[in-house]
């Protein structure tokens, strides 16, 4: 069953001088439980496509359905709520809240959802243990390595029990050991918990682990391979 349906989506960035056609007529369906990598060279439109799927950026043309809802029709405030309930994000630069501990960062999104304190504490600890940071729950991001921060970001992305997780080049700032650890964790979560992951990446190690690889070039899908 498709959790994400991208239908003939175009994205044009206009400046006063030039128009950049970042995404051209993309059609893409992603099913629940997939572990998909969107790959392509720099400027191919993979981050733009990911941002549009996550409702962070508007489409110029076309529709995107997430769990049956056309998110291109949602208003800003509705989209914020939608993201909170349905989508988990992992950013390239981790983007943790620096004044909160690892535990509080994971709890944060659940507190926005109104989950009671006991439940969010239990779930956050469980998630941090799952990403191998059970012993660092009270550390602030500045006391964690890049790989550890990204693992906290993965735990945070899963905290809200999203329909899928969007990860924009999650390993770009990590060394090989951290990359492997992070990929193992995500792979396990995908296989054991059935969590859907969609990556944008040009990291070969990530591509190797992906079950499906969608390749973009000049804003168009040029191949879509399921392993």
């Amino acid at each position, binding site marked *: 069953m498709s959790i994400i349906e991208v239908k003939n989506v175009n994205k044009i960035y206009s400046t006063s001088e030039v128009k950049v056609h970042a995404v051209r007529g993309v059609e893409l369906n992603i099913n629940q439980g997939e572990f998909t990598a969107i790959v392509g060279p720099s400027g191919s439109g993979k981050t733009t496509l990911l*941002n549009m799927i*996550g409702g*962070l*950026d508007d489409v110029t043309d076309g529709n995107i359905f997430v769990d049956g809802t056309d998110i291109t029709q949602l208003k*800003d*405030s509705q989209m*914020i*709520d939608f*993201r*909170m*309930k349905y989508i988990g*994000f992992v*950013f390239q*630069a981790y*983007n943790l*809240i*620096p*004044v*909160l501990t690892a535990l*509080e960062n994971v*709890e*944060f*999104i659940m*507190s*926005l*959802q109104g989950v009671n304190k006991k439940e969010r504490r239990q779930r956050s600890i469980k998630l941090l243990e799952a990403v191998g940071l059970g012993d660092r729950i009270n550390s602030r991001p500045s006391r964690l390595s890049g790989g550890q921060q990204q693992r906290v970001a993965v735990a*945070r992305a899963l905290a*809200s029990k999203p329909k899928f997780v969007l990860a924009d080049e999650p390993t770009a700032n990590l060394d090989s050991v951290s990359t492997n650890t992070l990929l193992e964790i995500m792979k396990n979560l995908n296989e054991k918990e059935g969590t859907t992951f969609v990556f944008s990446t040009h990291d070969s190690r990530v591509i190797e682990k992906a079950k499906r690889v969608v390749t973009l070039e000049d804003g168009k899908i040029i191949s879509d391979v399921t392993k």
Partner: protein
Amino acid sequence: MKEIILIAWRNLWRNKRRTLITVSSIFFALFYAILMKSFQLGTYNLMLDNTVTQYTGHLQIQDKEYFDNPSVDYSIPFTDEITNILDRCNKIEYYFPRIQTGVLASSGANSKVGTVMGVNYDIETKLTGLNNNVVKYYLDSNKINSIIRNYDVYNAEILLQFSEKYFNNKFDLTKELDAAGFDTTKNMQQIFDVMQMPLVRYKKYGNDVFIGYKLSQYLELNQGDSIILIGQGFEGTNAVGKYKIVGLLNFPIDQMNRNMIYMPISTAQEFLSAYRVNGYDTVYYVNFIAINTKYQVSMRMADYNRLLTLKTDLENKLDNDMLTVIGWRNLNEGIIETIQVGNSKGLIFIFILYLVISFGILGTVMMLLSERKKEFGMMLALGMRRKILALIISLEMIFMTLVSAFSVFIVTAPILILGSRHPYKLHGNTAEQLSKMNMEPLLKFQTIDFYILDQVAVVLVIVLLILIYAIVKISKLNVINSLKS
């Protein structure tokens, strides 16, 4: 909400230096504004309280014509009927009849306009501390020279600068000499002994008068000399009299030193023929009866309105078409105007101060928004509503204001309490200048009161206005651009 408060509080200490700079700027603005306001209120209240309590009274019973035409002809009879009404009113603390009229004071070839004040010396001493204004030490230049000749005075030139000056007590004399650089550890006893004026014991019903020391200088008179007073008496009579000066007065207000002549009220009544004989009875007249009530003198209208209720009550009880009761606001329009002008000037200073601080706070908010743009984008991406984001920033700024306000309170409270309970008496040039402006040279603070909250409220309003800018910025924040920043 707890998480929001936690994030806001921790954010405050992310950039400690910037927070401390902002908190310090708010702190100093509040500190200066509170001290200035406190000093202004304290000084004005002191001036108002002194004038109202000691001279005009909270209320005055007058002839209906006297306010517009303060002539002795519009005096009122000081009768048992009136005193009975006043004695029975439990809101009245005390009352004091007064005669106050302009005269020509003369001695030899010199004449000068003066003001005769007919008072009850006992009440006056209790009320205005008149005895404290009596000159006790006069630094006659001949006597100074004799001290310099007879004793080994180290800094004689400083002592000479004090020639022809008058002092009411040893403390003031010592303080002034000390401030001028004179070595007050030596020769002070000789100075006290030689410069001391003869001890004065004034008589309640005697014909002796006290005059301001500057008037005495002008008329070349001294203690023990006689002064001639010429004026317009009651009902067209001539008022002429010759009185013995029993003492000189040195007031903190310069104008009073130049023209005041104090005499017992009975002497003033005789001098002005302020009485009427009806058969065997003689009814004595006074210009007005000043009344001090149990109400506090303050610029607050609520306090004054209570006084006006008493005024109406007294008018009804007096039931006399010829008499009127006037409140202190009408009796002291000049002072009220001075206070209002002073307040306006103060407001301009404080406005400029807060304007400068506003730009400081705005700078902080702009920097903060710019620094955390990416973080805000991330929070919006994760599902935080814009209004919650705005709330976090608002709480941060409010915390900063409250931390500043709390610190200011801790620092200023002891200064205000001390400065209000123990006014600092100014000496030297500053004191002289204030005296010339008819102000008492006292540095007095208003004690802790609602005006502190007013200042904090002003800063909070400034912060809230600046937050509108932050809220607009957050509402227009583009998630993608923020994440890319």
